[in-house]
């Protein structure tokens, strides 16, 4: 049985964009291409400003993903939790769509009695464990993020540890913005292991503008257009029917 691929962008930032297109619009564009956008806002000591918070929530909302604002210390736990939760959410969405086709348009998971829900959830769990996952990590390295970069590195290594414990394959790519020359710069190309990160990270210099929107737009082009999310359903159609 061949499984489809889940695609996610994980944006790690600490505030507002100030250059180029609206990142919320770019996130909506990503969603249209079957790519989920999750955002993690990293705090220093105090609170994040209101507009930054709104943008973080807005990007995740229009990108079909999850947002979470945390202190740098909790980053490891949060990064892996957000990624897993977003995976489940996406898969749940796929399964829900499938359910609607079988049971009618007005039926959602909540309309099933708890006993049946358990069976559906087992399918979602099983898929989450075995599906292929591509995560493009997009790190804001402007200004105040500089001091948080070591923590971000730790959190990403921790994420690869969590995801590589799954049965399914993972591929990671790491991009930073702003880049040395353009809006965005690739520092790690698609790889199943994130260990390379340790060597690349110390070279980073941060500063300048925060082109979150353009960075998102360019990141989208790095996903291979081989399989869409829809194919995930097609591939597993027999599987769903068989197990329900």
């Amino acid at each position: 049985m061949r499984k489809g691929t889940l695609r996610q962008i994980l944006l790690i930032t600490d505030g507002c964009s100030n250059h180029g297109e609206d990142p919320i619009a770019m996130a909506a564009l990503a969603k249209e291409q079957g790519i989920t956008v999750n955002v993690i806002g990293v705090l220093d000591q105090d609170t994040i400003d209101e507009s930054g918070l709104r943008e973080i929530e807005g990007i995740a909302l229009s990108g079909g993903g999850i947002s979470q604002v945390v202190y740098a210390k909790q980053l490891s736990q949060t990064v892996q939790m957000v990624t897993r939760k977003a995976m489940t959410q996406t898969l749940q969405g796929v399964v829900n769509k499938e359910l609607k086709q079988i049971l009618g348009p007005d039926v959602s998971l909540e309309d099933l009695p708890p006993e049946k829900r358990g069976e559906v959830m087992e399918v979602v769990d099983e898929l989450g464990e075995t599906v292929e996952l591509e995560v493009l990590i997009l790190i804001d390295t402007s200004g105040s993020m500089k001091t948080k970069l070591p923590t971000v590195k730790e959190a990403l290594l921790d994420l690869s540890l969590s995801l590589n414990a799954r049965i399914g394959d993972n591929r990671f790519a790491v991009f930073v913005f702003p880049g040395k020359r353009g809006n965005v710069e690739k520092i790690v190309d698609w790889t199943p292991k994130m260990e390379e990160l340790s060597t690349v990270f110390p070279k980073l210099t941060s500063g300048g503008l925060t082109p979150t929107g353009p960075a998102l737009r360019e990141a989208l082009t790095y996903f291979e257009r081989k399989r869409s999310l829809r194919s995930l359903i097609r591939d597993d159609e027999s599987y769903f029917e068989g197990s329900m």
Partner: protein
Amino acid sequence: MMNHTLKGLCNLRAGTVVTGKWHHQSYKLLKPLGHGANGVVYLAESMKGIVALKLSDNSEAVTSEVNVLRRFSKVQGVALGPSLLDVDDWVTPLMKKHIPFYVMEYIKGEDFSTFIRKRGKEWIVILLLQLLSALDKLHQEGWVFGDLKPENLLVAGPPPTVRLLDVGGTTLQGRAIKEFTELYDRGYWGLGSRKAEPSYDLFAVAMIMIQSCCPIKLERKGDGRHQLISIIQADGMLRKYQAVLMKAIDGKYKRASEMKQDLLATIHRSAHSHSKQRASKKTTQKSQRSKKRKRGKAKSVVETALIIAVLLCAYAIYVYHQILP
């Protein structure tokens, strides 16, 4: 980080009646028992008596946990987790929202750390031996507990018996651990993967022992293994179990029963060497005492001899004077 729904669920007043949409059972909330990452547990009164009721804003999490509890209920005669009584949705009168909940047996007891604080550190190893037996059964059923930590252990009784709570992290073997807590997670310490295998739980058992013996605020600094060794060596009780702890930390135990046997062997060995020490101390004391006695005897012999000699001398002088007037 809690969202609004969960916060609302945390503050339900005592007396609130939760009624299920599907099975129409009613539960009167008495008091909150605690809350976790994705739900709140209340003590509640029902037709079946006193129960524990978990409300959550996360339908997937509830469903997953119910799945696990249901499988456990098929494993008879083992105190793996609380038994599952009911699963349903509650339509709140205020928010008009569907809140998924499930009802479990209420296990009366104290949490692990409080119990140790009250009853003494000698209980740590005993409770961990019980825990290892339960884990062994769980592992044989093909599961790994995952989020093993003192907060998820309850000491019921009497007699004091350890019970596992909160099955949110319980994962099928071979998959990725669903939920964990950094301090008890071997991945955090850089000492292994997050794949669900028995050795993952056994690492957490070692960490529970370390945390219970020296309840300091732990945080990884640099080389995790090195740090843990120095903590073990600094504590008298942990030092005794160092070999077992390190084997668990290095993931060398494939089964909980192996770790249990080694723990038992260490207890016996230390008890044995203890009595041996005491015995050897006794013999040395005895010989010292007898030496003292011997020395005393010699002294009295010399004394007697001296007195006799003096008396003899006196007699000799007396006789000498009698003969020579």
